[in-house]
């Protein structure tokens, strides 16, 4: 028996040959864990890192890439075991939780130590007055409309207010042939539809789901938006499968011409163009309440960045953050990602080259970026709670008012 045990060990030991850390003498190796590399054109993030290494002799960067949907588990487990990567890609929905867990460090301190001027940063995500995440690039979510379907339905321009939108959605749905006016992804697995496709209606009319940092879901603006969506639902203009639909499914439905309008990430513009070159579509601001003429909030999602609390190379880690946020690099990264830069003076190439992105940039600049979930505790779970109650309302189990009330109570217990 001993013999078998020993040979088992020998066999597996022989299998694990190439696990040595690549720590050449005198250099610092930074681990940079993110989900961006697979999202970007092949090799492009590595190329940026090579540039960084060239500028900073003695620092090498090791890119650790994981699937987006599982990044969180990896970061949490890594933080718990004290093996978190030095620099980590973050989503705005996670910041509060990671900072509470003590796994990411205050960037405010690092900026002070490095004597960094944060004037160029478009935004910083702060918890209790200290910055924990810096959005590197931002994906805004405008209204994307299928030109052909709108024309066919007798609508000449993308709808600008809620009434126009409801009419357009109805007209498109009436075309028949499996076409729906609007796609509403409410999956509870990836509940960001609550942020991008539901709350965006509130923000577009200058509303808020919070009051003094506390949940305020029963206010007139949230109620108005939720009731509006229920009307769309009851009118049958929402594409089937909404309760399990995810962002990725929404885009496939749109690309196939089965959905006339969707609120979706600018990152999808190229996806749609590549998959269906014949499809003509436009970008517009998210419709506001009919009487509203103030600035419109436009939802966004960020690729944020943070530094691990347990990192032994915080100063070097900050250098990498600074590099990614510098005007030129940030322009390049946002061009690669089809996103808007986190540095206010950066201008991505596509804004000049591409009319559609130029329009989007205009919408972005004429309104304000709005994402009230960023920085909230257990933000993802808040979306899920809201989504669950909202599904109940749409399914007819309760009224919208009851749903908002229930969601409000559940949110309060998490704050």
């Amino acid at each position, binding site marked *: 028996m001993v013999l078998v045990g020993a040979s088992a060990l020998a066999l597996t030991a022989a299998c694990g040959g190439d696990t040595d850390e690549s720590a050449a003498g005198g250099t610092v190796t930074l681990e940079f864990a993110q989900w961006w590399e697979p999202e970007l054109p092949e090799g492009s993030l590595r190329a940026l890192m090579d540039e960084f290494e060239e500028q900073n002799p003695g620092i090498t960067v090791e890119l650790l890439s994981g699937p987006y949907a599982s990044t969180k588990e990896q970061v949490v487990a890594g933080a718990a075991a004290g093996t978190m990567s030095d620099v980590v890609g973050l989503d705005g929905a996670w910041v509060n939780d990671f900072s509470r867990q003590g796994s990411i460090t205050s960037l405010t301190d690092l900026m002070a130590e490095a004597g960094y001027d944060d004037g160029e940063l478009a935004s910083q995500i702060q918890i209790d007055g200290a910055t924990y995440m810096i959005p590197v690039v931002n994906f805004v979510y405008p209204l994307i409309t299928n030109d052909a379907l709108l024309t066919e339905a007798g609508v000449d321009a993308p709808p600008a207010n809620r009434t126009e939108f409801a009419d357009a959605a109805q007209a498109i749905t009436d075309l028949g042939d*499996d076409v729906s006016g609007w796609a509403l992804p409410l999956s*509870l697995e990836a*509940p960001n539809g609550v942020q991008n496709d539901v709350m965006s209606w509130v923000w577009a009319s200058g509303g808020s789901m919070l009051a003094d940092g506390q949940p305020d879901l029963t206010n007139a603006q949230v109620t108005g938006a939720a009731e509006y969506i229920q009307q769309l639902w009851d009118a049958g203009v929402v594409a*089937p499968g909404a309760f*399990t639909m995810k962002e990725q*499914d929404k885009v496939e439905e749109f690309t196939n011409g089965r959905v006339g309008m969707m609120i979706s990430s600018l990152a999808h513009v190229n996806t749609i163009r590549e998959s269906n070159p014949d499809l003509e579509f436009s970008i517009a601001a998210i419709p506001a309440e009919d009487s509203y003429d103030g600035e419109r909030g436009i939802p966004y999602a960020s690729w944020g960045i943070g530094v691990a609390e347990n990192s032994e190379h915080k100063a070097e880690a900050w250098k990498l953050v600074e590099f990614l946020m510098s005007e030129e690099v940030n322009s390049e990264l946002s061009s690669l990602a089809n996103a808007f830069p986190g540095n206010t003076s950066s201008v991505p190439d596509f804004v000049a080259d591409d009319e559609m992105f130029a329009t989007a940039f205009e919408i972005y600049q004429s309104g304000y970026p709005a994402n009230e979930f960023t920085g909230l505790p257990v933000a993802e*779970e808040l979306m899920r709670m809201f989504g669950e109650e909202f599904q109940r309302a749409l399914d007819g189990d309760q009224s919208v008012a009851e749903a908002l009330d229930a969601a409000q109570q559940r949110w309060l217990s998490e704050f």
Partner: protein
Amino acid sequence: MSRLNAPPPVTVEAPAPTVPPRGRRRRLRRHLTPYLYLAPTLALMVLLMVVPIIMVVGYSVMDNVITNQNPQPVGLENYVEVVTDPVFHTAVRNTIYFTVVSVAAHLVLGLAFALMLNSGLVSGRIRAVFRMIYVLPWLFTVAIIAVLWRLLLNPNGVINYLLDVAGFIDSKVEWLANPDTALHAITFINIWAGYPFFMVSLLAGLQGIPKNLYEAARVDGAGAAHQFWHVTIPQLKPIIISMVLLDFIWTTQQFALIWMTTGGGPINVTEMLSTFTYKLAFSRYEFSLASASAVVVLALSMILAFFYVRHQKARD
């Protein structure tokens, strides 16, 4: 292959006499033998499974670990909170339905397919082809099974199309998104993904049934049904019981399939113990509550395991 040097045939009619113990050392060795056979397994399991489990049990009686820097013991508070949560009750109900239906269907389908694939009525070559087809669901990682079925069951997917063409439905059924059908739909997917385990194991088990039992039954004039119930089933019983036990435990653990198809929704109709626990841990970061919920599942499974072991004992 060791069978090549199999021993010369032996007389088995003689009942095996128990060797009389010759001295203490011999008896000690006899007593130690089974432990020696178990030693490598136990070493691995204790180090890599029992230790983490004890840690989880430890977490479950602490005030939120991981997110809390200095957790304090809170006794059974977490258990009370989990067990009194109405969502937990929903999760238990759904898990029971999902598990019982899945395991029963796995067994019935697995047995039916194994018998058909073993049937002497069909030529070996045809059976070989079907065998390959029948193991297909086995070969895919659960993430792919989930996205594949999302694709198939999409309101605009091929299954709705086929049902529409065949005249069974006249509107787009939202199999996974409709609260009335979602639980059945994911159970169906799980049945599809899980039956090959039973089928292959039973196929292997069928090879072990001595032919003379069938011959004896036939001589007694027993028909096919009688042979099935009185020869096949009793002979397969030890394997069937092991499989049912395992499948029961595994199915209650099924997480990725549910999470990646419905995420526990719509509303909470597909909320299971596994998704409930996952959300506690990685969405709300309540690792202590999640641990408590996990330990409850563990305790329930231990009861199941206890009955299995007692059954085995009785069989001996």
